[in-house]
C-alpha cells in the first residue's frame, strides 16, 4: 500500500474484462451519454483505456443478435439504447406520447446552416435562406437544439448561435465531425434531383 499512498488516486488495476463489466453496469444506470474522459477521471485511468473498453462493449453488443440492446456512440459519449427494429413495439409498451413533433422543413434548413456555419448570426442565416428566421430560431432555442454563443464583433453586436449537445443527441450523432462535408452534399443533391426528375417523368408516363 505504500506505493499507492504516493498517488492521490487509488491506482486500482482493472482487467479489461472487469472494466468492461463495470462500464456495462454504469451504462445501464446512466441516463446521459457516458464519456470516456469522465469515467477515466473518476477511476484514475487513461481515457484511451476506457474508450477502448467502451468500443469493445459496442462490438460485443453488436454481435449479440439475441439482445434487444445496443450501445450507441452519441453526443460525444456512449449510451445504451434499444435496437431500432424494436421501435414500434417498445413505443407501444412505453405507452409514451409520441414525443415532440418532428422538426419542420424551415427548422431543419435553419439548423443545417447553424450546424455548418456556427457560430452564426440571424442575419447570416437569413442571407442563406432568403427568408426571415426569427420564429424558427426561437423554436430551435426552445427545443435546446441551438444556444447563444456570444456576440459577433460587428456593429450592433448581434447574437451568435451554435448547436448544443442536444442537437447531436437529437440526430444520433457522436460529434460535429459526423457531418458530411458540404461540398459532397451538393454532388449528392444533383444526383438526387436527376433521380427525382426521372422518377417523376416515369410517374407521369404511367
Amino acid at each position, binding site marked *: 500500500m505504500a506505493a499507492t499512498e504516493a498517488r492521490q488516486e487509488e491506482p486500482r488495476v482493472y482487467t479489461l474484462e472487469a472494466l468492461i463489466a463495470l462500464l456495462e453496469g454504469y451504462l*445501464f*444506470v446512466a*441516463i446521459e451519454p457516458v464519456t470516456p474522459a469522465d469515467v477515466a477521471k473518476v477511476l484514475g485511468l487513461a481515457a484511451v483505456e476506457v474508450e477502448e473498453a467502451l468500443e469493445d462493449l459496442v462490438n460485443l453488443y453488436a454481435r449479440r443478435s439475441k439482445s434487444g440492446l*445496443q450501445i*450507441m456512440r452519441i453526443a460525444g459519449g456512449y*449510451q*445504451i*439504447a*434499444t*435496437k*431500432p*427494429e424494436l*421501435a414500434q413495439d*417498445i*413505443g407501444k409498451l*412505453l405507452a*409514451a*406520447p409520441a*414525443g*415532440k413533433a*418532428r*422538426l419542420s*422543413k*424551415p427548422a*431543419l*434548413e435553419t*439548423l*443545417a*446552416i447553424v*450546424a*455548418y456555419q456556427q457560430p452564426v448570426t440571424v442575419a447570416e442565416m437569413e*442571407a*442563406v*435562406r*432568403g*427568408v*426571415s428566421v426569427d420564429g424558427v430560431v426561437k423554436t430551435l432555442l426552445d*427545443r*435546446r*437544439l441551438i444556444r447563444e454563443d456570444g456576440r459577433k464583433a460587428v456593429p450592433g453586436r448581434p447574437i451568435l448561435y451554435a448547436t*448544443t449537445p*442536444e442537437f447531436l*443527441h*437529437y*440526430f*444520433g*450523432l457522436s460529434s460535429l465531425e459526423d457531418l*458530411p462535408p*458540404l*461540398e459532397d*452534399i*451538393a454532388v*449528392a*443533391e444533383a444526383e*438526387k*434531383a436527376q433521380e*427525382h*426528375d426521372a422518377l*417523376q417523368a416515369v*410517374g407521369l408516363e404511367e
Partner: protein
Amino acid sequence: MPVAPTAAPVAAIPPLTLTAFEGPLDLLLHLIREHKIDIADIPILQVTEHYLAHLRAMEAMNLTVAGEFLVMAATLLEIKSRLLLPKPPKEVGEDGEEGEDPREELVQRLLDYQRYKAFVATLATWEGDRRQVFFRGQAAYGDLYELPVPYGEFSSASLVKALMRLLTEMGSDGTAGTAHVGRAKVTLRLAMATLWRKIQRAGSEGIIFDECFERPLVRFDVIMTFLALLELLRQARISAIQEEMLGEIRLAVDVQKAEDETGEEDSAGTDGDAESAESEEEALEEFE
C-alpha cells in the same frame, strides 16, 4: 421537395404549381430544375419571366406574396437590366477573364442554398432513425431536452415551487363556508416595505425564502409577501440566490443596487430601532 406535375412542357408560362416554397431561393431552384437550366449559366430573361408568372399566379390565388419574394423579383430585374446595358469596353485580362458577371452573386447564393436544402433530407433521415431507438429514462423525460441550470442560478420556476410548497404546508384553515371579507390590512406597498427592511437588516447573508413569511401563515399575507418579493426582485433591489439544486433560496440586498443608493439608504436602513414608526414611514414612502 414535392413538385407538382407539370402539364404540357410546351407551355411558355409554367402551369400553376402550388407547392409551398420555403422562400424565393427555393422557388428559383425549383424553376431552374423544372426547366433543366444550367445553374452556372442562368438565362435571366427566361427565369425572370417564369418567376414573375409564379408570383402572379400566387396573387391570383389570393395568396399573400411575402415581401421576400418581391425582393427577389427586384433582384432579378436588376440583374436583367445590368445585362442589357452596354458593357464598358472590355479590358480582357491576361488570364482572359471577363468583367464581372452580374449573375455571379445570385448563382453563389443559389448554390449555397441548394447545399443546405440538400442536407435537410439527410437531417430528416437522421432524425427518423434516431427516433427508432429508446434510451433509459426516456419515458419520463420524453424528448424534452433540458440543460441543468448553471451553478448559482435558478429559474423563476424555483420561486413558484417554493410558494406552492408554502401554500401546501399552510393547508386549508378550516373556515370554509363562511368568510368575513374585511378591508385588507396589508397593501403591497406595506408588504414590500416590511420585506425590504427585513432583508436589509439581515445584511449581506440575506434571509432564506421561508423567513420572508410571518408565522402563522395566512394565505392572504403569504400571497402579498410573495408579490412584494417579486416586485423587489423586479426593481433589482434584492437578488435571489440558490446555490445548489433543490437548495434553499436566499434573498439578499442586491449589492449593485445597494451601492448605487448607499447615501439615501443609510438614513432609513441603519436606524437602530428599526421598528420605530418613523423609519416605518420612511420605508413606506420609498415605495410610493
